[in-house]
């Protein structure tokens, strides 16, 4: 059986937080594929971090995301194609969306959904896509603090 690969959506970067309903929409779409035996998803959530070097009570209210957009879109597509190509599965369905602009605490800056034949590939691909995105895609975030200040986000 020839392997089927799908990478979406057409534009991976969207204005504003990734809508919560995207998770259920894409999961339902992937589940409907008869070759899919496992769907794994990751939602990043903006945390109300308290900067260690700021006065007590200071916390993150939102993150403002920016990107070198054309390069970022191409980088996401290329890493998805690379990692999907390395996956042995009857089907590899990938959905990656990342927010641009303001994302308040509790909302999603990123959603990744993976559909694959079996759980091992699905888990590995979801984790692999996330780690590759963090190191290969020119996206930046400015943490907006309740004090009115801000600080550039550093990836861990």
């Amino acid at each position, binding site marked *: 059986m020839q392997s089927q690969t799908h990478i979406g959506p057409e534009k991976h970067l969207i204005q504003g937080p990734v809508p919560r309903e995207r998770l259920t929409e894409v999961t339902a779409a992937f589940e409907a594929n008869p070759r899919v035996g496992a769907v794994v998803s990751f939602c*990043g959530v903006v945390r109300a971090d308290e900067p260690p070097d700021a006065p007590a009570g200071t916390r993150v209210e939102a993150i403002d*995301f*920016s*990107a*070198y957009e*054309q*390069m*970022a879109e*191409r980088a996401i597509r290329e890493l998805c194609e690379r990692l999907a190509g390395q996956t042995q599965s009857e089907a590899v369905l990938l959905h990656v969306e*990342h927010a641009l602009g303001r994302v308040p605490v509790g909302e999603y*800056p*990123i959603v990744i959904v993976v559909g694959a034949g079996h759980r091992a590939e699905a888990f590995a691909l979801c984790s692999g896509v*996330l780690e590759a*995105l*963090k*190191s*290969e*895609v*020119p*996206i*930046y*975030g400015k943490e907006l603090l309740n004090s009115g200040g801000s600080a*550039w*986000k*550093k*990836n861990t």
Partner: protein
Amino acid sequence: MKEEVMQDDAIEDDAPSRRVSIVAFGPVSELVGENQTLPLAFPLSGAELRGAVVQTWPQLAQQRFSIAVDQKLVRDEQIVANGSELALLPPFAGG
């Protein structure tokens, strides 16, 4: 400092410098500002591009950033034949 020479169109080997757009992101964007250009005489290595950037914006000397020319990352030892947009890219922070 290299003398700046304005040039319009055709680029030849060892051509005089021409102005290349600079786009900066993350913390580097606050140190460089918007709508910047830099006179560059291609071909240049990645190290030479970095040197030209830091010479123009000395406040970047201690900053970590990669350079992309026309959206392709450039290593220090790589030679770039030509380009119209130089991006200054601090460590990525998506996800």
